[in-house]
């Protein structure tokens, strides 16, 4: 954008009122097993926070706690009052027996004018899809439509669960660029979930590495210098390692509990 100042406003102020959502020590258990535990996170206005971690590390569970779709058994989630949240859920599959055009999907949960719908679709580059059945869209088109749908409510916080699934590499980069641009334009906070590393790191302000609990967190630069992250990153680059090890001062048990210092944790392999 032409009129940008040196640094966007959100980086300057650390004032409390710009915190959109804060999770304090949240945890959820199912049948005696903690799916996630001791998770702290904050999303500020204009900030992109990315949750990364292997499959089953509790990323979606954490997102659902933030969205109030799940209730924490421990800790609490504090949302700024009257916060408008837009959500793109993971792996949304629409049954082929349901006739649904993109246009109809856009007004599924609330009424919007044709103009609002057209503008939202145009903003995410999905205008040409408007009259097509949703089941006939490509992965990238569908994600753009879902993103446009989430924008309709003028959200102050966007929660995007794996927004690049089913999208090819080039499309992935374009989507992350779009997400970053939307952040600048709407000045909203974004909680992004990904099990993918490379591209996410470039477009994010804060990274939280999750594996049932917060392994490490901080700015991409800081996280990239932690041994945990370097191990993660190295494994990705090497590509031949089936398992990546990262040195923890603790150990993950099957029941989700954590113990011991100086032990090594084996995280499940990442899917590529």
């Amino acid at each position, binding site marked *: 954008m032409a009129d940008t100042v040196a640094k966007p406003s959100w980086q300057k102020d650390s004032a409390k009122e710009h915190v959109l959502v804060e999770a304090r020590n949240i945890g959820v258990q199912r049948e005696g097993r903690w799916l996630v535990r001791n998770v702290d996170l904050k999303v500020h206005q204009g900030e992109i926070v990315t949750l990364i971690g292997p499959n089953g590390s509790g990323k979606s569970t954490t997102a*659902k706690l933030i*969205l*109030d*779709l799940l209730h924490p058994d421990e800790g609490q989630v504090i949302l700024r009052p009257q916060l408008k*949240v837009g*959500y793109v*859920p993971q792996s*949304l599959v*629409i*049954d082929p*027996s*349901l*006739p*649904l*055009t993109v246009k*109809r*999907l856009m007004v*599924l*949960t*609330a009424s919007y004018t044709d103009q609002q719908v057209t503008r939202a679709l145009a903003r995410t580059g999905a205008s040409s899809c408007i009259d097509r*059945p949703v089941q006939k869209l490509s992965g990238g088109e569908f994600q753009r439509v879902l993103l446009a749908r989430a924008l309709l*409510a003028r959200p102050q916080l966007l929660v995007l669960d794996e927004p690049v699934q089913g999208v090819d590499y080039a499309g992935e980069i374009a989507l992350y660029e779009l997400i970053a641009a939307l952040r600048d334009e709407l000045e909203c906070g974004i909680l992004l979930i990904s099990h993918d590393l490379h591209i996410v790191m470039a477009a994010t302000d804060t990274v939280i590495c999750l594996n049932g609990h917060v392994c490490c967190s901080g700015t991409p630069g800081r996280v990239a210098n932690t041994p945990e992250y370097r191990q993660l990153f190295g494994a990705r680059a090497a590509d031949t390692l089936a398992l990546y090890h990262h040195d923890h001062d603790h150990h993950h048990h099957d029941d989700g509990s954590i113990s011991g210092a100086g032990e090594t944790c084996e995280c499940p392999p990442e899917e590529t």
Partner: protein
Amino acid sequence: MRAMVAGIGVALIAAPLGCFMVWRRMAYFGDTLSHSALLGVALGLLLQINIVLSVFVVAALVSVALLVLQRDDRLTSDTALGILSHSALALGLVVIAFLPGLRVDLMSYLFGDILAVSRFDIGVIYGGGLLILALLALIWRPLLAQTVSAELALSEGLNPQRANLVYMLLVALGIAIAMKIVGILLITALLIIPAATARIFSKTPEQMAAYAMLVGVGAVIVGLMGSMQSDTPSGPSIVVAALLFFLLGQLVGIVRSRSTRNA
């Protein structure tokens, strides 16, 4: 003539309820509720209360039982449905055996007895039908949103669980009302087949519900005329007519996709 009016009413109720059944892959749920209707009939005769009421109450209880059973992760939905469906059917048959000195004309309940429809029945069909369609219109948005994604619906401030419960009760009521026309064994057909036929021609959910109503009404008219002409049972004749519409629709669908591929 009365049969025709009653049949059309039932088709109009069944079509939109059936659309949601198709979208949500709940055809077996419709079957389960209609099987439980036999228990409702038996209990209604035993306690000498209105049959439509007793069938509705039993079907509603079975719906709630299903919701409770579905909370148990160790049971899949179709197992829960299988248990409820056949237990209710067996219970119904057992209760019928207990009916003192009363010979129940099972056939008329299993396959419908549209020609014995009274004025009062027509009143029940249209009164109940209006109630069903009005309530369905009220819960349309949350129910449809839940069909697409319960999480999306919930995160955007709708109440999908309540919509789901209301829908199940509406199906129970629809089955209680429709039972006399097509019979317990064939109600699901009247719910599913018009909806499946309409799918081929529809671009939106609302369109599909409207087309399903047309197909259902058409099937009732054609089926009843055929049944009068060739003296076949009315309920099954309506379903056969619906099947013919469905096959015709499939044929049109195939021809159309061929022609668009060649174009």
